[in-house]
């Protein structure tokens, strides 16, 4: 590992994409970052408002037909190198929305997913573990 990736490893910025989630996972994500108990800023993470600032992208939801194009567009706006984390059971299989006519997922048909965090919604500890795994992958890519 060279100097750059050592530094980059300490500074993964997070961005959330909601691909038609029921909001359960998004609430968990907000909890992970916002409440003092599960502080992810200690890993150097920081939520950013713009996809262009992001390193690790957290996708929630089953990728509904309506939102698919927008999600792909936003995903392409995230500059390389990047790591993708799918949060919740929805992006993996469709979860409770499985086999619905409105669902285009699973999400890895369209996007390269690096880490899956199953659960409906996953526990904050699981999300943090997912982020920690993503940081390992991110350190190799950066």
């Amino acid at each position: 590992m060279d100097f750059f990736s050592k530094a980059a490893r300490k500074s993964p910025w997070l961005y959330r994409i909601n691909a038609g989630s029921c909001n359960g996972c998004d609430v968990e994500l907000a909890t992970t970052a916002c409440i003092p108990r599960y502080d992810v800023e200690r890993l150097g993470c920081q939520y950013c408002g713009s996809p262009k600032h992001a390193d690790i992208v957290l996708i929630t939801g089953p990728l509904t037909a309506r939102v698919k194009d927008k999600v792909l567009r936003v995903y392409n706006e995230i500059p390389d190198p990047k790591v993708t984390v799918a949060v919740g059971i929805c992006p993996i299989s469709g979860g409770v929305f499985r086999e619905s006519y409105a669902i285009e997922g699973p999400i890895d048909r369209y996007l390269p997913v690096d880490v899956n965090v199953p659960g409906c919604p996953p526990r904050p500890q699981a999300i943090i573990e997912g982020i920690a795994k993503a940081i390992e992958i991110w350190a190799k890519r950066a």
Partner: protein
Amino acid sequence: MTTDTLRTLLTVLVFPGGLFAMALGLALKGVERRAIARLQRRVGPPLIQPFYDLIKLMRKRTLIPDTANAFVFLAVPVAGLASMAVAASMIPIPGFYEPSTGLGNLIVLFYLISIPAVSLMLAGSASGSPYGAIGFSREMAIVLAYEGPILLSLVAVALHAGAVTGQPILLSLTEIVRYQQEHGAFLFDPWMWPALLTYLCFIPANLGIAPFDIPEAESEVLEGPLVEYSGPPLGLMKLMSVTKSVVVLGLGIALFFPNGPAGLAGLFIFLAKCLVLVLAVSVLKAAVGRMRIDQAVLFYLKWPELLGFAGLALVIARF
């Protein structure tokens, strides 16, 4: 002649402008983030987190949106950072460093300090993004609101320093600092308090600190002017804003409380004062929410403006 030019270049590029100011700014930013985390009972990022962030940004890809004016979009961060490096070299570190007169006086400094705001506006409008445009208009509104008070505060100090040294107006920061070191700081002179308060009000708006971080509100307008930036240009923008914090805090220290021992100890006292100011700013940032842009503009047009006029009137009435 050449050694003079070389020395000036060194002050702009290495110490106390350029590298030193940027490193100090990044370190202060780290302290601020850590302090806020501790106030919220979090562990918080490591103190050198801003350095990591900067190095990482230098490694990312730069995306230029189709709608952007590429030249302005890429030139603006460089121009803003350069202006701040020059401005930082004009800030005296009492007892340790005196800027050469060739660099300019308070008026030049005043203009240099407004360049980052102009850069942000240009960045927002050149990016071609609607969020950038909103950030641009908000930045413009708030600049128009705080530019008046800060000017009044600077003029009050310059007039006062001029009156006590027998000149109509004293625009050299070095001499203002020297006078205070001999005759006591303006901080302890009640006649100067309105000007001091005006300056303190100006700090959060200029540095984009809550409740006045409206142009770059990440939860409303996705960091406004910075929304389309990525990679190295974004890093330069961040570097510009941390260097600006050094300039603004350093100017405040030079104007109102430059006293300290000579030599290396003076540098440490200066750093300690910066640290105290940053901690105060972090408490403010952690304690309050964000204002609306119209509230902020009204606030600045009312109170700091009034204080500024009061400070100026006091100085004029006194002599």
